[in-house]
């Protein structure tokens, strides 16, 4: 299948064009041998049939500053790559062409068939910018199409050009370089690399000379060869790179100037808005106000959908109970799986709204402003301004947040961001917080206006944020690095969000959450249910006999007897044995063995807590209608007879969930992003220690 790559500078509107070209036929996937996820989709063309389209992360040039920017270089210099494109569609912001031409000319020099898509033609129209596309096309030697990703203008023409380009594939391969004039050391190095590694294109060889030490697809022999060639010719990486960049600009600059006509200075809405949003004093206040509003909106807007979903699951439970025969399978379905799923899916509205608002902030361009506002502060904690984006998205889910750190070029800043982001309360913690807060904070208002439980919720979030900053500070002191750190960020103009982008992002993230959580909950519920219902046969029988005897002694009625038997049996089950085994370690925190089981199952994913509780407390319970809340409220300790979920225990448990690393998916992503298990263990270690100590402290303070 033909492969085309979409590339260009950041903020050029690539994603909207990608969406226009591929529609809903797109996916995010991981390619073997490459550490980055790529967005790819398919495009159907009349002439070329099915074409795979890859959306490469934006970069300013083939001299990358961060891992994100490195991807384009890696892909375009590795013909053996699975995703080496046959052609490139270069997306440029027509209102800022001079800058966008740097990368463009580099790609053309690499010999790729290229189509230049001049995007944002609607903006150009508004700002009175006119480009003579014929002149530009003649100069570059590539077809040029004016499009607007925002309005969907001229996409058909773009598709036509792509079709044409793919058919006439034997274009401009390995030709001369039009935009770069090789210095003598460069010529020498290029000739030798071309000869020894059999490279057809001279610019390709030059890039290998500059980047060979960090290109993973080169083997050690090739790397040493290239290094030797460079050494012998006196090839100095940085000065030559600078000379090349300046050379390119001065080569195409004058030509471009003649082809573009601008009417007047642009003092736009963006400038006016930024006067407020990046104001020296008001900017941070405004930021916190916006975050607060986002927080409020999530809870306010989600109430009704949440009620519907809740009702839905209750009805489903009732239905199943009526239709299916009473027995263990029905129990498993209604009390284990349905209850557990319901307990988490009821939060989908909140999660969806959260993702929506965060994506909106990014789409509109506000996130870049947040980076700017807090960069200085972030540096005090060993972080980069860009870490703010990770910390905010961490409020939805740590996984995309951790992946977003690829834009941070300094290793130490990036690692610290990855290490502390999971301390930010993610949406999976919401079900846990909701259930437990009810046992710590009364349903009351403070001063008559502030909902106390709501305040407690906010408090937990703030606790996570503070823990993240403090931990970052500690890491900053411990880790040593001499590497330089950068901000250098372009602020895109504020723009109306592309609603299709937003919708697709939400659909992808929420879908992944539901499927992921759903799968884990089902598996854990089934296993747990089995472990909690069955146990060593002799012990189970004896427990039942003893329970019955005890019940007779105390003259308990039928229901009470059944409950006593169930309680004794579950203690003797496999789950019970496991729980009792770890109980000594968690007793100082005020936890009992059932909580212990919940901690074990939550290790997979936090949201499993609800399903676990539902299963453990409903097995054998004769009350089908009890909610999780009422079941926990009535749980008593066998030895003292007191309540299990006292404020002290519940608070300690809450704190545990604020700090603990309970997400296999996050650990998997950290492993992938850092390239080893070392950091996963460090992260798990320090977060577990924090959780244990935090719970211990809180329990003893409140007890």
């Amino acid at each position: 299948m033909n492969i085309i790559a979409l590339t260009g500078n950041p903020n050029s509107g690539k994603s909207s064009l990608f969406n226009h070209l591929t529609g809903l036929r797109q996916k995010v996937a991981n390619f073997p041998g490459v550490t980055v996820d790529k967005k790819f989709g398919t495009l159907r063309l009349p002439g070329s049939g099915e074409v795979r389209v890859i959306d490469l992360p934006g970069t300013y040039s083939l001299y990358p500053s961060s891992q994100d920017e490195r991807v384009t270089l890696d892909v375009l210099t590795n013909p053996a790559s699975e995703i080496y494109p046959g052609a490139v569609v270069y997306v440029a912001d027509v209102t800022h062409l001079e800058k966008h031409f740097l990368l463009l000319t580099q790609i053309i020099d690499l010999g790729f068939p290229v189509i230049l898509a001049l995007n944002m033609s609607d903006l150009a129209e508004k700002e009175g910018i006119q480009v003579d596309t014929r002149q530009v096309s003649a100069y570059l030697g590539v077809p040029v199409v004016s499009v607007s990703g925002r309005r969907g203008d001229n996409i058909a023409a773009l598709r036509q050009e792509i079709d044409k380009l793919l058919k006439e594939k034997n274009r401009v391969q390995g030709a001369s370089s039009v935009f770069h004039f090789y210095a003598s050391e460069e010529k020498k190095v290029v000739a030798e690399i071309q000869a020894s590694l059999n490279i057809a294109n001279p610019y390709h060889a030059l890039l290998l000379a500059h980047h060979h030490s960090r290109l993973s697809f080169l083997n050690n022999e090739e790397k040493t060869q290239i290094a030797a060639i460079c050494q012998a010719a006196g090839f100095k990486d940085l000065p030559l790179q600078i000379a090349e960049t300046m050379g390119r600009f001065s080569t195409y600059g004058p030509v471009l100037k003649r082809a573009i006509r601008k009417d007047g200075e642009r003092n736009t809405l963006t400038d006016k808005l930024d006067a407020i949003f990046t104001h020296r004093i008001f900017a941070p206040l405004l930021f916190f106000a916006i975050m607060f509003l986002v927080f409020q909106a999530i809870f306010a807007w989600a109430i009704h959908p949440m009620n519907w979903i809740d009702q839905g699951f209750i009805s489903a439970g009732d239905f199943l109970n009526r239709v299916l025969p009473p027995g263990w399978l029905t129990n498993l379905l209604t009390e284990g799986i349905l209850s557990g799923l319901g307990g988490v899916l009821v939060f989908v509205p909140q999660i969806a709204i959260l993702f929506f608002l965060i994506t909106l902030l990014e789409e509109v361009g506000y996130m870049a402003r947040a980076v700017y506002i807090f960069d200085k502060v972030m540096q005090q904690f060993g972080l980069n301004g860009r870490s703010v984006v990770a910390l905010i998205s961490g409020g939805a889910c740590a996984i995309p947040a951790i992946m977003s750190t690829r834009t941070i070029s300094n290793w130490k800043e990036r690692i610290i961001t990855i290490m502390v982001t999971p301390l930010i309360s993610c949406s999976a913690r919401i079900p846990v917080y909701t259930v437990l807060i009810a046992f710590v904070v009364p349903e009351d208002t403070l001063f008559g206006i502030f909902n106390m439980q709501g305040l407690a919720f906010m408090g937990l979030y703030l606790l996570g944020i503070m823990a993240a900053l403090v931990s970052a500070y500690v890491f900053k002191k411990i880790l040593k690095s001499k590497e330089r750190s950068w901000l250098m960020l372009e602020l895109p103009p504020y723009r109306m969000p592309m609603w299709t982008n937003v919708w697709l992002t939400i659909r992808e993230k929420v879908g992944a959450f539901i499927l992921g959580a759903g799968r884990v909950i089902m598996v854990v519920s089934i296993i747990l249910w089995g472990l909690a219902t069955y146990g060593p046969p002799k012990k189970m029988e004896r427990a039942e006999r003893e329970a019955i005897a005890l019940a007779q002694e105390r003259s308990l009625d039928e229901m009470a007897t059944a409950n006593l038997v169930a309680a004794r049996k579950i203690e003797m089950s496999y789950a019970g044995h496991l729980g009792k085994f770890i109980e000594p370690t968690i007793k100082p925190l005020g936890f009992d063995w059932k909580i212990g089981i919940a901690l074990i199952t939550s290790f997979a994913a936090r949201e499993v807590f609800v399903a676990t509780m539902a299963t453990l407390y409903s097995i054998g319970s004769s009350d089908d209608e009890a909610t999780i809340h009422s079941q926990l409220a009535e749980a008593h300790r066998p030895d003292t007879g007191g309540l299990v979920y006292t404020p002290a225990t519940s608070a300690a448990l809450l704190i545990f969930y604020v700090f603990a690393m309970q997400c296999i998916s996050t650990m998997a992503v950290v492993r992938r992003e850092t390239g080893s298990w070392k950091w996963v263990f460090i992260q798990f270690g320090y977060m577990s220690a924090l959780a244990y100590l935090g719970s211990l402290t809180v329990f003893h303070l409140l007890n």
Partner: protein
Amino acid sequence: MDHSVTQLKEGKFGTVRRFTDERMAGKLMTMGVLPGSKVQVVRIAPFNGGYYLKVDGTNMVLREAEADSIVLEVLADS
């Protein structure tokens, strides 16, 4: 008169003459800050942070150290 960007007051602008740091120069140029570019200091960030600049019409933010490495030619009355 030569000034580094950090020596300019808010609202003032100048033309890029040269850079004082090779590494930064490479990165800055890739982003479009070139000798001859018009640079305006729009404002300074909260917490005494970075510089909000307009470079040839594009809005860009740089840390103090990064902005300091850009040397501008400033006309007497800009």
